[in-house]
């Protein structure tokens, strides 16, 4: 397994938020291997999962036949409070990032070809005293040298408003590859940030949101800043 190009040998090397989803994925791979053994398969490719939470170049693994993928946009920031004393108004929560996925992409004989992955910046926290939460920046997976790939992207998520409304739902992602499923980011709800969208590769949202959650706005019990959004991510699962 690789996280932002760093080889991960044991789960404990991962940030805690990834361990649950990765464990689920490892079990899935184990089931695939067992099935292969029962069927007498002799394929030598060891499944690889690559997680990217920063921008970079993703290289298709030689020997793989398909690559399941998911791309999450980053979350927007929550709004800060306005007012002070007995006249504090809470900030709105930032919207969550959207998500796109599709049918596993065929990568037979495409080992070494690349995608350019851009993970957009999270939305900044809104500062107390009149600052909205920041919008996040769009994320994308574009073909570098990869063939047959239509570029995909997830648009910005809107920041929560200072002393007011949460960020609204995002626009739908762009993905015209086979079996595309495009899910717009969740709007914030009151002071709560928009929820992260569940993943299918890594079993996301197992108790805690993993990618692209919106930052919360600050409550009205005191003067304070909102929270920044949570970073999005791209996951590539080679089988």
């Amino acid at each position, binding site marked *: 397994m690789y996280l932002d190009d760093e080889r991960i040998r044991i789960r404990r090397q991962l940030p805690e938020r990834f361990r649950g989803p990765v464990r689920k994925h490892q079990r899935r791979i184990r089931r695939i291997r067992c099935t292969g053994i029962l069927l007498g398969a002799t394929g030598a490719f060891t499944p690889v999962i690559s997680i990217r939470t920063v921008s970079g170049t993703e290289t298709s693994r030689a020997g793989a036949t398909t690559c399941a993928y998911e791309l999450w946009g980053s979350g927007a920031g929550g709004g800060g409070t306005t007012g002070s004393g007995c*006249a504090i108004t809470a900030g709105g929560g930032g919207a969550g990032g959207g998500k796109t996925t599709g049918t596993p992409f065929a990568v037979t004989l495409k080992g070494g070809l690349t995608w350019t992955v851009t993970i957009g910046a999270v939305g900044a926290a809104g500062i107390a005293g009149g600052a909205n939460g920041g919008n996040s920046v769009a994320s994308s997976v574009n073909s570098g040298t990869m063939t047959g790939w239509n570029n995909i992207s997830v648009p910005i998520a809107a920041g929560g408003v200072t002393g007011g409304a949460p960020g609204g739902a995002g626009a739908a992602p762009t993905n015209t590859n086979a079996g595309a499923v495009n899910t717009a980011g969740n709007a914030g709800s009151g002071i709560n940030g928009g929820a992260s969208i569940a993943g299918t590769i890594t079993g996301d949202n197992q108790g805690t949101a993993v990618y692209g959650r919106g930052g919360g706005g600050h409550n009205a019990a005191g*003067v304070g800043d909102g929270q920044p959004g949570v970073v999005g991510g791209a996951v590539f699962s080679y089988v």
Partner: protein
Amino acid sequence: MIYMTHLHFKDGFGILYRFPRRGDGLPMHTHATEEEHDVTCTRGLIRVIIKDGRTRDLFPGEWVGDLDLVNTHHEVIALEDNSSCLNILTHGRPLSYVALPANELDRSYEPGPITTPLESI
């Protein structure tokens, strides 16, 4: 429209609220510990209403500081035109106020609706 002004005095800190009309006030709210305060009437007639139904009417010079306003939702209403109250923050100026812009320290604003109907006062 009501008016609020931050007041600093050595380690002390308070906020003066001025209510031009009867029925103006500070809508039902609660606080974090660092915003804990008492209420002193400085002009007119002020009523402090606790969500559990308790009330205190304050004439100029009278104050209330025993209602646990941190953990209890409360509302402050002017019962006369041109009333005002000074809320002293028990723990001094909250650290989170240091970075507030100048326009937050002395301003007029339209508060949210008062929970208690004026007709019942």
